[in-house]
């Protein structure tokens, strides 16, 4: 009997010990970020400069980040979620306020005013340091010239996604917030509308489009950008980051780029930002990490690797003047446009959006 107990214990031990492989004695910083969203050379540089080990983990969505944080298996020191998730996590008291005095590099940099006004006044403003920003917009295939004309027409923009008379093949984002947000903006309402009548109108708009389109509208996620680039879709609702990713991929492969990006006049801005979750055991080092990425040279090197629009004006200038980037066309907030950020309006609101998207999907 004793032997059998030993064997059982051994079996369980082997299972758990596998997860412990790779431990070392250096001070550790646990970072949770999106895939391909930070230059690994800079992480190495930070490790060497501070003689620490950065344990870097990647996820594919804000929700996954939330789940990982709440699991409590790893005590993360740094996370880089988007604005509405920061709003949610701060409302749930899961974030620590940033001690801006520890961020010495802040003195020499300035965040874009346009981005800053969107979060500064919000309750969650004290919990974040912006990382990158961009818009939600429409990626379209340039082979069909009608698409561009439709997007730029008076009733174009987000409404093009729901205008079944065009006969375009359309991709919508399989996420309640983004697709219903686009419908709300087409109707001229706020992306954060919690008004039942307005949400009802948005639902009808999507539902009618789906019913009349006879299958030419479909929902997707990461596959949308590739399908627009290849010509399997005429246009799709995407994040500006999706578009950049595709451009870099095609440039690397030296393939002809037959797609472009359109940001409607009224759209929302996404801001991904550093936050320090309350699981952090090493807040000083976490601040050092954030400070490291506020250094202009580091931030520029990182922006060049990631390819998204940097949120620090000085870095933006370096990218345009020294690295030769042409953001003009993609600058998230050109003159004359109106921009909002997503907010977290409680679980009831999230549930409402989910019910709407489910309802239009099965209608």
């Amino acid at each position, binding site marked *: 009997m004793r*032997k*059998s*107990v030993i*064997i*059982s*214990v*051994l*079996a*369980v031990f082997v*299972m758990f010990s596998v997860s412990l492989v790779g431990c070392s004695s250096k001070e550790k910083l646990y970072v949770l970020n999106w895939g391909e969203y930070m230059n690994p050379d800079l992480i190495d540089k930070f490790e060497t400069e501070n003689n620490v080990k950065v344990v870097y983990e990647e996820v594919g*969505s804000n*929700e*996954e980040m*939330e*789940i990982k944080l*709440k*699991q*409590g298996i790893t005590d993360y020191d740094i996370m880089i979620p988007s604005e509405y998730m920061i709003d949610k996590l701060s409302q749930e008291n899961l974030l620590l306020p940033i001690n801006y005095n520890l961020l010495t590099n802040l003195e020499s940099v300035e965040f874009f005013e346009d981005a800053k006004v969107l979060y500064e006044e919000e309750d969650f403003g004290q919990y974040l340091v912006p990382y990158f920003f961009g818009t939600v917009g429409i990626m379209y295939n340039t082979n069909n010239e009608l698409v561009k004309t439709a997007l730029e027409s008076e009733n174009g923009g987000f409404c093009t996604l729901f205008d079944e008379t065009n006969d375009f*093949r359309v991709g*919508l984002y*399989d996420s309640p917030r983004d697709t219903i947000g686009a419908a709300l903006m087409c109707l001229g309402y706020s992306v954060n509308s919690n008004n039942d009548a307005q949400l009802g109108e948005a639902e009808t708009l999507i539902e009618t489009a*789906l019913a009349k389109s006879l*299958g*030419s509208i*479909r*929902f*997707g996620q990461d596959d949308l950008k590739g*399908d627009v680039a*290849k*010509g*399997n879709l005429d246009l799709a609702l995407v994040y500006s980051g999706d578009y950049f990713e595709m451009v870099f991929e095609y440039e690397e492969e030296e393939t002809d780029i037959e797609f472009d990006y359109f940001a409607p006049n009224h759209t929302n801005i996404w801001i991904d930002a550093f936050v320090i979750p309350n699981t952090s055991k090493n807040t000083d080092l976490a601040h050092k990490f954030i400070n490291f990425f506020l250094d202009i040279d580091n931030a520029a090197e990182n922006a060049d690797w990631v390819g998204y629009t940097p949120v620090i004006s000085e870095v933006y200038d370096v990218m345009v003047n020294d690295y030769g980037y042409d953001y003009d066309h993609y600058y998230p907030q050109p003159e004359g446009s109106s921009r909002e950020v997503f907010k977290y309006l409680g679980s009831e609101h*999230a549930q409402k959006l*989910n019910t709407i998207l*489910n*309802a239009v*999907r*099965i209608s």
Partner: protein
Amino acid sequence: MKSLRRLIYPYIAWLTVLIIIPFLFIVLATISTFHIFNSYTFRFTFDSLRFLTDPIFLNAFKNSIKFAGITTVICLAVGYPVAYFFANIKSKNKTLYVALLIVPIWSNMIVRIIAWENVFKPVSILNLFNLSFDMIGSDIAIIIAMVSMYLPFMIFPIYAVLDKMDHGYIEASRDLGANSFQSFYKVTLPLSLGGIVSGIIMTLLPAMTAFALPERIGGGTTILLGNLIEKEIFRGSFSTAATVSFVVMIVMLGFFMLIVRFDKEGETLL
């Protein structure tokens, strides 16, 4: 013999940690607010059972039954003759032919699903032959892909039974005056019933719980139970996901009891 019995303990430990405990968690999550990551809100509630009347669940359930049902019928209609043909082949290369049927299963299912997905999109390798489909999201695309995925699971149990069948029975029925149709209908078919039931279950169950296939080929508008579970989990709604999983498990259990009834020796369960 008794000393060998000890070798089973690691397996029991493994089974407990990876199957029994997670299963209990699923049951618990179905009937309470149990959340593996924040236990402090724990209380018993049957709220999530209400999800079983939600239109999205009913739609997913209906879709699962519909696609799995159609797929199974087509697989049976195609699979039985194929199995019959291979079982009656009189060639010394018989094993080779049968092995060829297994080859498609050797490549990863996800790879095959993505291959179908690309074929069903307008820009595909088929353009070389001046063909172009735009079928993502259509029922027919899902059914074609499902049949291609699950057909081998229908063929093999039937083949196994037909191959082992004593041909003496058929000769006897012919001697007694039955024509070839009668001897098939009265002898071969009843004797292969166990294989048919196994085949149906081995096709129906994975088709009902299919997840990656409708995800890639359903265009986000066709949702099956598997997709619903995934969506609920990523929304953070563990108890509704657990409830749907529980329903799926009950259905599976029902089918399993059916197979045991028809196939007492379990010989067709490969």
